[in-house]
């Protein structure tokens, strides 16, 4: 009886000890992390005095670029805190206009009218990158090149069969991005020359993101869609535009016209920390380094 009692007490004690150990460990780890970050910030504070807060929101296409730039910029200027989030292209300029963000990433120049979106007043467009887009088709489609007029016909529902554009005899399946997508706005402006995409033909559907566009086109035979060039990989075929292959080289030598600038929209001309950040993103070091690594095209390549 006494022995058992002792055992139980022992077990309770052990439990207490474990708790103590866990608490101690947690405290130690918090202290270590704290002191480390303290060391880092104090060391870097000496280097520069730039201080402030930047909120970036908007286009998901530009988000990887914003995140990478924010990481590098914070390393150089620890006094600056940057929060970047991806919502949608139109959300960027809107947030800037309302004042809830300093930078609104947008896939088009929000100070101009584009199909279905009116210009935003009082904003300033800072081009930061070049994004190429391309038409894609399922692997089983035999056509390798389409003209502007053929694409317009397909996306307005005038051509319903691949044989109407010189392909095999089978109905065309049109896969489209949702209204308001930056990719859609740019594709409509640059590839379809502003022609409206017509919905509700029987072989038509919409997807909500570039990733889903890729999945849909790669799994749907006889389908056609469009996507950022960086998303093209095995499973879909990128189609030439008026005979010109969609490659980075062709964008740079101006043969391939379906590309657009990605913009950082600011309220008026950027000032202070925001200006410093945008200057960093536009700098040759970032453009030729990280931006290229993320498969965007540097601004300086387009002349």
């Amino acid at each position, binding site marked *: 009886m006494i022995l058992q009692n002792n055992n139980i007490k022992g077990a309770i004690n052990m439990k207490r000890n474990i708790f103590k150990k866990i608490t101690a460990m947690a405290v130690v780890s918090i202290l270590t992390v704290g002191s480390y970050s303290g060391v880092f910030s104090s060391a870097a504070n000496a280097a520069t005095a730039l201080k402030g807060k930047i909120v970036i929101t908007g286009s998901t296409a530009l988000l990887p670029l914003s995140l990478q730039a924010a990481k590098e910029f914070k390393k150089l200027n620890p006094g600056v805190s940057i929060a970047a989030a991806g*919502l949608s292209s139109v959300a960027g300029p809107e947030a800037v206009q309302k004042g809830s963000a300093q930078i609104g990433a947008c896939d088009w120049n929000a100070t101009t009218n584009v199909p*279905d979106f009116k210009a935003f007043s009082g904003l300033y467009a800072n081009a930061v990158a070049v994004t190429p887009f391309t038409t894609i088709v399922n692997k089983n489609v035999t056509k390798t090149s389409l003209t502007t007029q053929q694409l317009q016909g397909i996306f307005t529902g005038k051509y319903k069969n691949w044989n109407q554009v010189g392909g095999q005899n089978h*109905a065309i*399946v049109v896969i489209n991005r949702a*209204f308001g*997508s930056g990719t859609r706005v740019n594709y409509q402006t640059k590839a379809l020359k502003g022609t409206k995409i017509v919905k509700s033909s*029987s072989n038509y*559907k*919409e997807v909500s993101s570039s990733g889903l566009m890729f999945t849909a086109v790669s799994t*749907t035979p006889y389908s056609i869609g469009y996507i950022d060039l960086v998303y093209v990989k095995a499973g879909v075929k990128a189609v030439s535009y008026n005979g010109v292959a969609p490659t980075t080289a062709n964008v740079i030598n101006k043969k391939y016209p379906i590309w657009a600038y990605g913009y950082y929209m600011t309220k008026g001309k950027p000032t202070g920390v925001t200006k410093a950040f945008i200057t960093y993103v536009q700098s040759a070091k970032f453009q030729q380094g990280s931006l290229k690594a993320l498969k965007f095209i540097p601004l300086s390549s387009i002349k």
Partner: protein
Amino acid sequence: MKKSNLKLINTTLKVRQSNKSFNVNKFRRNFSNILFKYFCLLSSSILFITLFSIIFFIGKTGILVFKDVPLQTFLFSTNWTPEEHHFGAAAIIIGTFVLTGMTLLIATPISLAIAVFLSEIAPNWLKRIMRPMIDLLVGIPSVVYGYLGMTVLIPFIRRITGVDMGDGILAAALVLSLMVIPTITRISDDSLTVLPNEYREASYALGSTRLQMIWKVILPGAKDGIVTAIILGMARAIGETMAVVMVIGNVAQLPITLITPTSVLTSNIVMQIMNVQSDSTWHNALYMMAFLLLLISFILIACIRLIRNKGEQTI
């Protein structure tokens, strides 16, 4: 037995030891009691405040749509082309009801069969394997179901039916069925299992077969629980977004056939809400759709309550 006795002795010893500092302890106990009470109160009030502000906010924004679009047009027109200022949500609302109906049509018989199997037929060792497995199915994220639907189910439908697309109510209903079957099964299973064994014994004693016992005694006996299960499954089907948006096709047109690409309230909202300017009629119309969804869920929950209350009265 012995162990619990020991615990009792241990605690009484501790109480005696702590008698010296009784006043302090009493204060501490009172204090923690009060603290706990206020914590509970705070938690529930936070929930209620959040809930009511959501309803208020969505309703307030949604109602603005009727400044630009008459109520009849919004509810009864099937022309949803917001970029040309046509805000008829009827096709989308009908799509929601058809999809939910189809889902329940597929899911309910299968779920009930599984529930009956689990509670009446399966041997105990199988029950112990199957029940946790069904619980696990509830926890699978809907995006996984959606992705599988898009890459496996839709090509399959395309092959069977010979159409070019395959997106539509059929694909969405099949994916949703898979998602609600675990919910309906587990709740029905529980309500079948709690039925007193005397029911079963009595019906066997009267000479009924097992099938007769299940059909005539067990299922009617667990009716309230089963209806609750179906309504909960329905609520899940109506509110599901991610899986649906990947297989429905997202075209705002009437679901003329089960394989016509179409749209439901949830998928339409999630496709468009990010991409519209926040002071536009379109934005308000999407909020109105969200409000309609809330309203439908509210009605469903009210139904559950009514059925439960009736059940309590009969017992």
